[in-house]
């Protein structure tokens, strides 16, 4: 640790440049990861809402509605179908407006239509299901969130593609910058390195101080970025809570594992920190490895 701090103190500007590049890259990466996770969580949430709702005219019998429900369930394209009779709808209406007697007086069960709420297995099945429902008799109206889901899907896809491209560019730029800075550092110690090699030092031994410094700066910059980001999030948390008041929770899926993105959990926060730190230390180490490789090979002529 003493040697590490001495090395940083002896080349303060190079160390600051490494820290700054890592800081910028890690901050933008964390922002991208966070936004993508949120978008995926939001997409998952929208997909979990009733995606197609058909309202029936008063003439529609309960038996005919159940027949449609059975047919939908047999199609293999729906996750579940929920029947809401006129009475169920009225009960729900009463519950939602229990504090407003005027509204309750004006409405009777006859006014409210019976309906089916359909959850599709995949968003791509939605148009097909909606087309079928448009053909059933005594249909009053068919609502489905095609546009919302499609827009969210395309937005997520665009953000993911752009993020990936931006992320690759950011990473490549950072590695090049770090390599160049490390080259300077290596060049400053060229005599010492060549002497050490002549004295029998292994590549690992000679590379170690550079690698230690890179890992240290990677760790420090990712920790600083994370702390700053956490501070900003803490500051914005009340606004986010207000904005997402109707959303109980958001998840992202990693294989069979579901991670809660909202409300913010310790698991998610810890995971983000680990990923960020590993990423910061990883790119710093990779750049240092490339930068030192050229100088450390035994060049026998």
């Amino acid at each position, binding site marked *: 640790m003493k040697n590490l701090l001495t090395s940083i103190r*002896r080349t303060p500007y190079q160390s600051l440049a490494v820290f700054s590049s890592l800081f910028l890259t890690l901050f933008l990466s964390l922002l991208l990861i966070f936004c993508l996770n949120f978008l995926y969580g939001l997409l998952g949430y929208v997909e979990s809402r009733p995606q197609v709702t058909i309202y029936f005219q008063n003439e529609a019998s309960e038996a005919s509605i159940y027949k449609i429900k059975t047919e939908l369930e047999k199609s293999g394209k729906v996750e579940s179908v929920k029947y809401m009779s006129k009475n169920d709808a009225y009960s729900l209406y009463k519950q939602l407006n229990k504090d407003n007697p005027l509204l309750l007086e004006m409405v009777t069960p006859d006014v409210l239509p019976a309906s089916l709420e359909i959850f599709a297995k995949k968003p791509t099945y939605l148009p097909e299901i909606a087309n079928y429902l448009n053909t059933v008799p005594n249909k009053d109206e068919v609502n489905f969130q095609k546009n919302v889901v499609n827009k969210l899907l395309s937005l997520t896809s665009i953000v993911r593609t752009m993020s990936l491209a931006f992320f690759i560019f950011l990473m490549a730029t950072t590695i090049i910058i770090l390599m160049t800075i490390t080259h300077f550092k290596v060049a400053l110690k060229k*005599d*010492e390195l060549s*002497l*050490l*090699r*002549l*004295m*029998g*030092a*292994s590549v690992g*031994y000679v590379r170690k101080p550079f690698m230690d410094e890179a890992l240290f700066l990677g760790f420090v910059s990712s920790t600083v970025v994370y702390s700053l980001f956490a501070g900003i999030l803490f500051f914005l948390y009340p606004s986010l809570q207000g904005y997402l008041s109707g959303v109980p929770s958001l998840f992202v899926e990693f294989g069979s594992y579901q991670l809660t993105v909202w409300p913010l959990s310790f698991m998610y926060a810890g995971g983000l920190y680990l990923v960020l730190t590993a990423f910061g230390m990883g790119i710093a180490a990779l750049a240092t490895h490339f930068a030192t490789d050229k100088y450390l090979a*035994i060049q*026998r*002529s």
Partner: protein
Amino acid sequence: MIQFESVTKSYPLGVAALDNVSFSIERNEFTFLVGTSGAGKTTILNLILGDLYPNSGTVIVDDIDISSKKCKRIEELRRHIGVVFQDFKILQDKDVFENIALGLYIQDLPLKKIKEQVREVLVLVGLEERGQYFPVQLSAGELQRVAIARALCGDRHIILADEPTGNLDPKTTWDIMKIFKKVESHKTIVIATHNTDIVNSMKKRVLVLKKGKLVKDMQKGGYEL
């Protein structure tokens, strides 16, 4: 033991540095390499150190054949070789202690042992009071002593010295040679030099090189060109 068998080495553009050179140096033997500039003295030292590889022939040091460019045991071999460079190669940002201890740090020895060994070798070269000095505070003779101390420190039983007294006055030159004499009983020492007085006075083995050829190999010899 150091063994050269029919070693030929030429540099790019066809400059022949060594031409079919064969000799062997026994363990704990003291040998001078003499010859005019460009005769091949430094090339021999670099071949022993594994910094160069021969175009043809065999170089064996400590039973390790380092003739091949792809030899994997160069690092291991170098940990047993101490080198005294003509330009000292003392690191300016490290003090005397740190410069000498470089080779011991490589061997990953405990700090206590490193301190003991450096102290011993500082006494040997007469710099026991200079451990905390930085190179800029030392004279040329003292710097050369530091270089020798670094070469002697640790388990380095082959000492290669390239013109170790090249830039020193006669008194300092003899002081330096006295250090080599102190350790000659348990080190294999190979010194490339132009210094006639030293070679003639010390009566050690002398290998005379001329235009890359080994022209004479004398036990207890003198300086000849």
